[in-house]
């Protein structure tokens, strides 16, 4: 097919341009695109949120559509930890170990109120629950809910994919750009606004 083949002169110019630097930015972009679209979560549930996580992976919600339903039974093969449920003080060291066993690059999603802030277990005198996963490990995306519905978890995974594609930072979403360039004044972009 009609692939444009660069001339020798163009190749020489490109090589000249590239000489002082090792340019890996494009490679990183491609790698991030691959990573974002083939997330492998670790098979790992903590409490009732895990039931919703399992429902998300099953046929009705079909997480495979987003390339993120290859739940791996070993942390060595996983690059996404979905923290689905209450974290007790007894379980926290185990989770920390699993997280450290996962190879880089890796990401985590805090699913549900318990892993965000302790949720319903945050009260004076509480003696057995860790109030939020971020007390002992980094979290990329928070999905609120008690428990969140599968749609919410899917939204969290899509948000994480956006983050991975942008090199670990949240930037403007394509929808935001489209809204800005469409230039309708007074459109604040609130979800649930006027139809």
């Amino acid at each position, binding site marked *: 097919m009609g692939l444009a083949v660069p001339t020798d002169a163009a190749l020489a110019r490109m090589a000249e341009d590239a000489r002082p630097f090792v340019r890996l930015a494009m490679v990183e972009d491609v790698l991030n695109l691959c990573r974002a679209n083939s997330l492998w979560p670790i098979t790992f549930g903590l409490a009732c949120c895990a039931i919703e996580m399992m429902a998300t992976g099953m046929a009705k919600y079909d997480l495979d559509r987003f390339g993120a339903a290859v739940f791996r039974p070993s942390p060595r093969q996983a690059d996404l930890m979905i923290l689905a449920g209450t974290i007790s003080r007894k379980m926290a060291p185990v989770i920390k170990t699993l997280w450290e066993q996962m190879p880089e690059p890796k990401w985590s999603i805090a699913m549900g109120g318990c892993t965000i802030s302790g949720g319903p277990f945050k009260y004076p005198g*509480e003696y057995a629950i860790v109030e939020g996963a971020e007390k002992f490990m980094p979290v990329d995306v928070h999905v609120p809910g008690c428990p969140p519905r599968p749609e919410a978890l899917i939204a969290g995974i899509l948000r994480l994919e956006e983050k991975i594609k942008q090199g670990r930072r949240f930037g403007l979403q394509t929808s935001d750009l489209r809204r800005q360039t469409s230039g309708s004044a007074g459109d604040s972009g609130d979800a649930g606004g006027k139809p």
Partner: protein
Amino acid sequence: MTTPAGIVARLEANGWVAAAPTPHPMTGVSESRWIAPEHLVAAAEAVKAAGYFYESMSCVDRLEALGGFELVNTFARWDAPARVAFRVLVPKDGAAPSLTGVYAMAEWNEREAWELYGVAFTGHPNLTWLLLPEGTEYRPLLKSFTAPPPSPYDDSLTSPAPSDG
């Protein structure tokens, strides 16, 4: 004599139980009796021989009212109404007899009572923490318990990793 009333009558003939009547419509318990700790294992053997299964064991902090812990051992059969509760009063620094030799399922119930209340059990094969981290010193379900020591996870990510204790 496998009815709750029959079992209790036989134990009462041995002088083992004291009345603690409980209205069945309110609690679902057909026969509820106080029993001396030294007779608990024999009573559990009797209900097991009568085809009852070990339902649960709950612990109540009665330190102020009775000076000890009340253990409510519940046994049941599926042919309703058949549920027997044997209540044991364990003195504050005493020990309760373990039922693990009769019903293996009692093991986790007794570990839970031990870690949450501090009730000792004689004859338990593995009396260690079940729900709380190993090495936990406090007994959170005591009525005198007010606030736990700070969690090892209260600090931010920059602090050293908490130990497993």
